[in-house]
């Protein structure tokens, strides 16, 4: 699971009001190279929750992202490279995503988050 996905997911357990962002518990983190595509990054930047991305990156052991970012920073190649690395190249292979409200753990196994709810959470 990439941080891009993490940035879109929330806990949808019945009754949970603030299921975003999910806390990351990392057991195994992989880095896989992906072709650099600045247009995609620029397109996606305004749609992301930056703080969740920074916190997620930290949970995966990468602390080089600035706390705040605005669209002017997209002009800088150095920033884009870091953004690209965090968004698309860091993978949570094994671990869990924890609902910030209930503490329910959604397991991440072989890189696939399992977001299916239990019977008593629907």
């Amino acid at each position, binding site marked *: 699971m*990439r941080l891009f996905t993490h940035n879109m997911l929330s806990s949808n357990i019945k009754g949970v009001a603030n299921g975003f962002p999910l806390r990351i518990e990392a057991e195994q983190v992989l880095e896989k190279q992906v072709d650099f595509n600045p*247009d995609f990054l620029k397109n*996606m930047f305004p749609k992301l929750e930056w703080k969740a991305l920074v916190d997620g990156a930290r949970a995966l052991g990468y602390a080089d992202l600035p706390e705040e970012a605005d669209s002017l920073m997209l002009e800088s190649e150095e920033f884009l490279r870091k953004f690209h690395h965090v968004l698309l190249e860091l993978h949570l292979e094994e671990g869990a995503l924890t609902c910030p409200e209930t503490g329910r753990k959604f397991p991440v196994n*072989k890189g696939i988050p399992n*977001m299916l709810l*239990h*019977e*008593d959470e629907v």
Partner: protein
Amino acid sequence: MWYLCVFFHRLLDYRRAEVESLAEMLGVYSSLEWRLPENQHPDSPFHLVNLPSEDVARNIANRSILVKGIYELWGEGSSFEQLEEAIKNYPEDRKLPYLTCETTFKVTVDSFGKAISFQEQNDRIKSLAFIPFKGRVNLKNPDFNFWLMETDDYGAHNGLPPVVQKRIFFGRLVGGADRKLLPTYQLKSRRYLGPTAMDAEMAFLMANQAQVMPGKLVYDPFVGTGSILVAAAHFGAMTMGADIDIRAVRDGRGPDCNVWSNFKQYGLPLPVALLRADNNLPPWRPGLKEVIVFDSGYFFLNTMIPFHPLGAWLVRALTVDEMCEGYGSGSFECLAASLTMREGNTEENNSMSLVAPTQFHCIFDAILCDPPYGVRAGGRKSGGRKLLKGIVGPYTVPDDKRTDHIPSTAPYSLAECVHDLLDLAARMLVMGGRLVYFYPVLRENDVVENHFPEHPCFKLIASSEQILSSRYSRVLLTMVKTGSYTEKVAEAAIIKHQEFKENYVKWLGDCNLHSSVFSPAHPQLGEEPDSKSCKELKPKYRGKYV
């Protein structure tokens, strides 16, 4: 200019829709004009289409799957004499650049509905001697390809569209589909297959209907083995898939036989994300906010205007001031909320830089899927069968068993599934984004009911039927998001869904489609001879059964 567009004779409903979709993708925003050559049946492979330039025609043809060729038509006629006359009358300045002595050329003879012997082909090429070809012949890699195509009534029993009169066309090839894609991507070669993997040709057609381009983000909520996303990835999209079946999406059949391996096999970029999720309760965060930045007005002109009733007015009001006036008065309701404007590069090429910090809940450029109809695969959703029917209260999972608990699922009817799909698409697609999905219909006595699901945020722009058996077929629906999603819209959509369910889709309930498709026919005694005579009366023309 009018071009001759010749299709492969298959998937008849999909042919024009594909060309129209690709034309729009390549920047042709007015709807295409079509006409049929003289005496041609609408199902004939020969069509005439009006396109703005040869480049557009070439790009459409090369990207398409069903276009055999788009040709600059030099002449047509019902006999060779008429054809010769027509070619001679075609303007010299359009012909001569392609006949000069430094160029190479090739003439191909083709016919629809009959094979022509080599000898006959040669004779026909020789009869074109009146055209002043000065270049040299090159059969392998010519600069210009000329095609002589004819269609005639070659006998009634070949199942092809009826031909009233012989017709001959002569033209210069502009471009054609790359059908080599199909053997490369055919399911036979696919390592990881499921029972409902999408056929490669159909998957490419879906990607074309969705206008998939490099950099776009495409989502499939019923990803299965990823067969639809493979086609989207081939055209350069970033892909994302979800499925409720964790075995399909995570495990596959082993380390080198899973969804990832299907992409690796063709050297395609891997999906951005695969996850296990329920389409009934999608885990996407609410308020996936989108700040739309109109740099140089590209998004605005190309994405919003064609679909908005005020579009025409906005095209005329191209100055920044006028546009803002439009927003200020609240006429463009989805943007009116709080629009601020940064002036800066307004002098350069008429571009504007507007920032509209409105809350759009959208991230995907297209959603492509083949939902479970309950015929070959049934849908599932969260919550056990008994729980949903209210027979038992929710099963409380004991704390010590929470970690590896496998939740039970309940059947998911198609009507509900499609409603959820439309709701998801309305929330998550960008404005102008496309939802392309299959919807099954029952065929009774060859009559198909044409009532498709509707949603206030969407406009249906194409519906193409593919016949699967004498009992049912599936229709590829292409919908464009034209309105933004609000609470009000969501409520209206639920009412629409209820009406639709009551009026048209009683048969879509639990397993009705399955039983309608598979229940044995019960011919009553005495009806036998009837059905036999029915068989004899079957029309010679196979129509869409190609």
